[in-house]
Structure formats: structure tokens, C-alpha cells
């Protein structure tokens, strides 16, 4: 599974169907601070992802 992290770096991990929530926790990322796109589309934390998927983790902002 390829993962694009909020800082722009890329990671490749072996994953056999874990939930986004678990993947974030394993990466030490607070799920409350990010939204996650799986194969280009934003998905909920309950969604699962596997080896062939591409995740993009986006730290969304709130200022104005």
C-alpha cells in the first residue's frame, strides 16, 4: 500500500485489509486532525484499505 503523508513524504507498507483508523494509529497520526483519500476519494475511518490501494493523508486546516 502506498501512503502519501501530510508532510508530502511517501511510504510503502504491506497491509492486508486494515481500517483507515488502525492505519492512522499505527502511523502515530491523530484521526481528528486529518481526512484520508483512498484512491483519490475521501473515505471514512471505517473504510478498509489493502495492498493495492493508494492513500493520501491530508491534514486539513481551520484558520481564516
Amino acid at each position, binding site marked *: 500500500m502506498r501512503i502519501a503523508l501530510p508532510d508530502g513524504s511517501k511510504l510503502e507498507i504491506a497491509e492486508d485489509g486494515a481500517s483507515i483508523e488502525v492505519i492512522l494509529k499505527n502511523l502515530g497520526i491523530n484521526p*481528528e*486532525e486529518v481526512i484520508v483519500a483512498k484512491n483519490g476519494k475521501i473515505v471514512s475511518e471505517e473504510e478498509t484499505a489493502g495492498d493495492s490501494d493508494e492513500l*493520501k493523508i491530508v491534514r486539513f486546516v481551520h484558520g481564516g
Partner: protein
Amino acid sequence: MLDDAESRRYSRQTLLFGKEGQEMLKRTSVFVAGAGGLGSVISFYMAAAGFGKIRIVDCDSVELSNLNRQILHSNADVGRPKARSAYETLTGINPEIEVEAMVETISEDNIGDLLRGSHLIMDAMDNFSIRYLLNRAALKGNVPLFHGAISGYQGQATTIIPGRTACLSCLFPRAPPPSTFPALGSTCGVIGSIQVTEAVKYVTGVGELLENRLLLWDGLNIAFDEVAYERNAFCKECSDVSRSDRDAMRG
């Protein structure tokens, strides 16, 4: 109808959308939620573009630390309500439009009154609590909401059209933890300009809007990116599914 002065004022943009498009802008009333970093850019460009009525609301007074980015306000305005300098700046840019600048805290109690008569909602807030309020009001009033947010070199924007796109709560089901955010004027410039561009396109009916598309700005690397999103069938704000049905479906 545009008079002679208006025709000259808008001559460079009527090359894009004609006098018909300009008249559409003139007939449009907008609500700008906030006169801070984003609100300054948004209202500035909307006034310049000739949106017929701008209602801008902010409860704060100008502080020195605002002046790195809040271009509606000047050094002489420190200590005064932002609404006041907002009014002066916007009417100074364009005396042809109507500007209503209010010292108000947007809340559940007054949002209905504040939005009355507005065709568009421009999100220039600095917290998700009020953004969710704007989202609910947009859905209730069937009024498009142009979302924007910034932090440091980073920003995001998307366009919410009730009945046509997902809503803000579909996209951001929960607010991020509160934090003091770094703020650079030029980031407000990028994102605020995008929000205004979206509004102009929506009103004049051209181009592709950021519908179900979240635009991401990375100013450190000068790069745009985007991710798609869709309606959440169980969204507590825009879904027709009741809470009990939602719980039952989830088993």
C-alpha cells in the same frame, strides 16, 4: 442595467462575461462571515467585482497582530471594530455597491436574520463550530456555501451547493482539535481569491466549480492538489436518514 460609470468600472471583466454577467453580479447579495484574513480578501475582491450587496459580519476589533494579513484594516484602525473599517474600505473601493457591515457574533440565534436576502455565503471563519452553523444554514436556505480555510502556507477550498453536492459535514464530519494557527497574508490571498472566483463563476454560470472536490494549496512547494469527496449517506446534516434508521442500518 449598468450606467456609464459602471460600464467603465467593470470594462475589463465584462470582456469575460459581458454586461449580462455583470448585471448578474449586481443582482447578487452575498454574506461574508468574518472580516479577518480570508474575509478581507473575499470582501475586497467581491466589492471590486461589483457584487451588488455585501453583508459582512465580525464581532472583533482590529489588533496590531491582524495587520500582517487583514487588508481591510489599516494601522489607524487598531482598537476600532473591524466592521467599521470594513465598511470604509469596501465603500471606498466601490461606491456603486451596497455594503452592510455589522458588529455581531454569528450564532444559532441570529444566523437566520443575518443571512436573510443573501444569495451566497462566503466562509471566512477561523473555527469549525461556526462553519458547521453556516453549513446548516446553507442547507436550510438552499444557499451555496463557498468554504475556505488556511494555516501557514497551507489552504483548502471547496464549493457546497445544497441538493447538488455533499455538504461540509460530509467532508469534515468532525472539527479538528482547537489550536492557534500561523497566518500568512499571501495564503489568505490565494484561498480567498479562489473562493471569489468560484462565486463569480457560479453567478455567471461558467467553468467547472469545486463541486465534490477539495482543493488543497501547498504554498511551500507552490502546488495545488485535489481530492474528490461524496455525500455521506448517513450525514447528520444533509442525509434524509433519521438517526434511528441510521443506527439500525449500521446494526
